[in-house]
């Protein structure tokens, strides 16, 4: 068992997320990356195996405390892959793949156990991670750079709530093209208001509608561009509540739904059903019905779910910094991002 002292870093991260000091997934991603860099360069480990165990305990801790959190575990999972790769190139041993043949022909002698202590490993992993950090930082810039490939003149684009990535994307497109944006306010957070005000400031013709008007407006919308909380392994989404209805309406009118997502939002998790306990979380009903409503509150139940599950068939395209991909390609992106053994930790 790793002693508690060593896990202070991750506990602090968890508490910061729990207390909403870290809200944006981008901030969480950066914090996690920094945490890992610290762990790798200063942590007490002698072999890749030990380091991997250190990371794995951290992933497990996050999963236990924040079952919905995807960004931090994904960054760590990717780091595991980095460690594996660096170890392999340093030790000149090849990882057996997932193919049946290789499974069968594998002999115990050449099985990788990551236990050798290699001298250059620490520095090479840190180097690799630094590169990754640069990639993280430029990610939303790279996504925004594709804006003109997706938005044409005089389009009507619908978006829901607020997403920094979407905001950047639309503003970039607005530099060269004129188009209209319809912002769904996204009750009960109403962060669509902030989004709309910000877009309008950048000279984009913006219309704000209530959540209820989505179906009515959708018939005139050309594209739906949204952000997401997580992209699941089957190409589905865990997105802000209300987006399922938006995606359904889009499907009804055959409007393409584009999801802007950073690579760290792609998660190798499958969801049995959206009603699975670990999938959704309900927060304080105060946003839905104020406490001041009176004694009636004692007699009713109020739900305020945070997420919606959006099945992959409702998503047209994922736009990450690497470009656009369809939902059926997600499994491949995942295998590039993470090692198969780390999918389920």
């Amino acid at each position, binding site marked *: 068992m790793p002693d508690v002292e060593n896990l202070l870093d991750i506990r602090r991260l968890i508490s910061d997320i729990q207390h909403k000091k870290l809200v944006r997934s981008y901030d969480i991603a950066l914090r996690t990356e920094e945490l890992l860099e610290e762990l790798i360069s200063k942590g007490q480990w002698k072999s890749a195996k030990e380091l991997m165990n250190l990371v794995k305990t951290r992933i497990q801790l996050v999963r236990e405390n924040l079952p919905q959190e995807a960004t931090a575990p994904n960054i760590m999972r990717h780091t595991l892959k980095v460690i594996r790769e660096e170890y392999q190139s340093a030790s000149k041993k090849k990882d057996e*793949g*997932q*193919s*049946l*043949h*290789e*499974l*069968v*022909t594998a002999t115990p002698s050449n099985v990788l156990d990551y236990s050798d202590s290699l001298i250059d490993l620490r520095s090479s992993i840190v180097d690799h991670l630094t590169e990754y950090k640069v990639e993280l930082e430029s990610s939303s810039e790279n996504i925004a750079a594709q804006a003109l490939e997706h938005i044409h003149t005089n389009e009507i684009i619908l978006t829901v709530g607020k997403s920094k990535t979407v905001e950047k994307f639309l503003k970039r497109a607005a530099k060269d093209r004129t188009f209209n944006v319809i912002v769904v306010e996204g009750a009960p957070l109403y962060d669509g208001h902030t989004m709309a005000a910000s877009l309008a400031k950048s000279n984009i013709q913006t219309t704000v509608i209530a959540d209820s008007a989505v179906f009515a407006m959708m018939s005139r919308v050309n594209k739906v561009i949204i952000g997401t909380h997580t992209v699941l*392994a*089957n*190409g589905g989404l865990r997105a802000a509540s209300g987006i399922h209805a938006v995606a359904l309406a889009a499907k009804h009118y055959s409007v393409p739904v584009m999801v802007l997502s950073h690579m760290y939002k792609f998660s190798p998790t*499958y969801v*049995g*059903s959206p*009603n*699975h306990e670990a999938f959704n979380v309900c927060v304080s009903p105060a946003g839905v019905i104020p406490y001041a409503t009176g004694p009636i509150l004692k007699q009713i139940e109020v739900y305020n779910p945070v997420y919606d599950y959006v099945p*992959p068939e409702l998503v047209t395209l994922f736009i990450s910094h690497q470009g656009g991909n*369809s*939902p*059926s*390609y*997600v*499994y*491949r992106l995942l295998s590039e991002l993470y090692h*198969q053994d780390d*999918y389920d930790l």
Partner: protein
Amino acid sequence: MDGAKVREFFCKIIREDEDVSVGVAAIRTLMEIIKHSKSETVQELETNLKDGINVMKNTDYPVAAINSGCELFLRFITLAALDTRCFSDCKKIMLDRGHLFIKKLDEARGKIVRLASKFIEDGSKVLTHSRSRVVLQTLRKAHKQNKRFEVFVTISAPDNSGKQMCKELQAEGIPCTLILDSAVGYIMEQVHFIMVGAEGVVESGGIVNKVGSYTMAVCAKEMKKPFYVLTESFKFSRLFPLGQQDLPEEYKFKSSVRKSSDLKKVHPLVDYTPPAYITLLFTDLGILTPSAPLSTYKNIIWKSIMNMTPIQDVLIMDH
């Protein structure tokens, strides 16, 4: 080993060991052939094996499983031959690998069971078709995890294999209802998801399975219920059926029927379910999405093949 012996051995395994799937039985038979083979060269051995395969295909067991299992096994034989020059060594390696292979296959089912049992939630109602060992084990496992759930099993004409499935589930203490094949549409409204096995998984990402699976999948799609397929990866076969008619006849009909009667008037044993109707595939290689073939695969050797399903990915990696 002559044909009769091969057939006898093969049928004996299936008869005696309830838990062994036809594919594994076929592989075991091939191992037996290697063990008793008096051949002196690799080529001769290969011919022996191919003869054996043909014998097995002509039994009345589902060809799909025999085919893919044997195909895979043969591949190792040739690979083993490349590894060594001496024939006796080669034979030893083959047998060693064969055992390892069978061991892995046994593990495969456990892996699938582990993956799939997570998808069974408390209070869920599961619909399954015919009898599938891996589905049975998954349900057992979920039951052992103290999950409360209900199972509906189709009777699955013409061999009524669903009856046995139902009996086995009830023996475990799992609430189970036997339904008519024609009642699939009726029951679909109340079930939460469908779990079936497969005799073979084809390159499109679709499956070949006991007749009636397709009906069930179409119905599930219409009712928006997830359709899960549980299958070992040795059942992946290099076949791309375009439709029911395109399915090889040896898959659809028993060998005895094939020879004697007018095939138009015989009920087929299996049908083909296209990938669009399948939600997820649970395999020992992990959970796969069948969906539309769209992915590009960066394998140097197979560069030319640009559009592939996950299934094809797996198949291609094996070459």
